[in-house]
């Protein structure tokens, strides 16, 4: 039973981290408020199913609502860049929590309790989340190799040059935001129906930083690195009490040390290691 909950948590964390990776990793648009979209997905799904709606319908609704708000915030990325965008997206996160706290229909400070069970049992729910996670990984892999992925990459590398090359920067940025925030909404809906309770603290600035930490530790833009980082970082607090007690300290130190010593994250470390090993073998064979 315990392993089931670990795998479920792992699955929606992977979706959440990959959704940010799409915006920040692929398209190079830093976001310090991504938890807001996770929250928008969680709240809209929770509202829908506590109001009697079907769980299966709640998932696309959560994606659509989160993606819609992502589309609006995406416009911000057309107006401001780099540090300005970082602070603007951070502001979006605070606007979300500040708004939810004051709204009675969203439960205010207390949140929404009694979210109905999807009614498919624990194991199928875990499999469902894992299937979505696999689909998002596949989508990320496909996207990265597609024409759109290359356009994202160009924008991430040098926006002005990309524009000169005739890439419709605005369209691709908005697309990245809609995809990324929509998937965050999906992760949020899955999360809400797993814990059966949403409150605004689950989607605050610290949560935005936690998901950013997964992307950073995995390696910005790296799919497998982010998957591994999200899987490990999301279940460690459940496995080790020490990690749960000092989660923020560990995240903080991780963010700093990764940036300080290996800005490419786990992904680039593994590649360097791999190159060393294979390089040495080649040399050994040569001698």
């Amino acid at each position, binding site marked *: 039973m315990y392993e089931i909950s670990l795998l479920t948590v792992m699955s929606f964390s992977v979706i959440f981290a990959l959704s940010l990776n799409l915006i920040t990793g692929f398209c190079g648009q*830093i976001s*310090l408020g991504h938890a807001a979209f996770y929250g928008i997905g969680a709240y809209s799904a929770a509202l829908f199913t506590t109001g009697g709606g079907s769980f299966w319908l709640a998932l696309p609704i959560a994606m659509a609502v989160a993606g819609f708000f992502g589309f609006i915030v995406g*416009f*911000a990325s057309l*107006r*401001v860049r*780099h*540090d*300005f965008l*970082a*602070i*603007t997206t*951070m*502001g*979006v996160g*605070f*606007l979300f*929590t*500040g*708004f939810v*706290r*004051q709204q009675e229909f969203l439960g205010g400070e207390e949140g929404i309790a009694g979210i109905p069970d999807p009614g498919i049992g624990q194991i199928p729910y875990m499999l469902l989340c894992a299937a979505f996670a696999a689909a998002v990984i596949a989508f990320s892999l496909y996207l990265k190799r597609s024409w759109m992925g290359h356009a994202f990459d160009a924008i991430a590398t040098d926006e002005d040059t990309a524009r000169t090359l005739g890439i419709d920067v605005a369209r691709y940025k908005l697309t990245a935001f809609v995809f990324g925030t929509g998937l965050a909404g999906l992760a949020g809906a899955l999360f809400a129906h797993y814990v059966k309770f949403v409150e605004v603290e689950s989607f605050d*600035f*610290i949560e935005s*930083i936690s998901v*950013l*930490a997964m992307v*950073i530790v995995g390696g910005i833009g790296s799919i497998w690195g982010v998957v591994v980082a999200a899987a490990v970082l999301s279940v460690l607090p459940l496995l080790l009490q020490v990690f749960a007690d*000092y989660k*923020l*300290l560990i*995240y*903080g*130190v*991780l*963010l*700093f*040390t990764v*940036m*300080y010593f290996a*800005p490419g994250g786990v992904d680039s470390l593994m590649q360097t290691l791999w190159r060393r090993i294979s390089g040495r073998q080649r040399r050994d064979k040569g001698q």
Partner: protein
Amino acid sequence: MNYSDLLVQGLVEGCIYALIAVGLTLVYGLLRILHIAHAGIFTLGAYIGLLLTNETGSFAAAFVITVVVVGFFGMAFYRLFYEPLLDKPPHVALIASIGLFIAMEEIYRMVFGATSLSFLAPPLKDTVTVAGVRLEEGRVVVVVLAVVLIGGLAVLAGRTRIGIAWRATVSDAAMAESFGIDLARVRYVNFFVASAMAAAAGIMVALLLNQVIPTMGGVPAYKALAIIVLGGLGNVRGTLIAALALGVIESFGTIYLDRVLDRDAIAFAFLIAVLMIRPQGLFIRR
């Protein structure tokens, strides 16, 4: 509460924001780093100030010692954490700074405990009447401090050798260096001034609320970020105006906007609205 009360309260809040935000904008102006861990330094000031006051019994002595100690801490912080990152892409320092800030909050929780600390004998709690508005002495001191420290900064920047060196470095670091300016020294002074001001703000906030908690830096820090963007990143004068304006807007906003947004989100609503119209902030960098 009548309008003049709201206005005065808003200006006092604005002075606190200004003390925090000016340091932040100085760091950005010089190094192009969004120094999020500035909030951790603010909290450190609050802790040291409170503990020293309780230990020595003298708020004034504790204040001076704290400001100087935290100023030096800021220099060490720069040397240890930021200097090695100066040549890396801008997001590296930003993310490292977020990590440092979160780690600092956790370290405070471990060292000082998660529960709030308070002054044994809270100083400056009497009320005085200024221009028909009744105010705690502490609030008056906040305004005086903001005027003295920021005024002092203006004199430092305008009249002294190091101030001129500092301004030259902000406008063109390579050129300044070729004229024999010691960039490292300018950066140290910059971090000393910024951290000392944050510490002063930290002690005063601790005094006004009569409590210090590990996470007290969070909200003012995020607001200070919004303020320096509004002020046009790196622009000290713009930052001052934005800080005072935000204090006043919040003070009125709690009356009129409370149903829609909580107080702490107002800054960002204002920020986003402004950025959508003027992406470079309210005030263009000189």
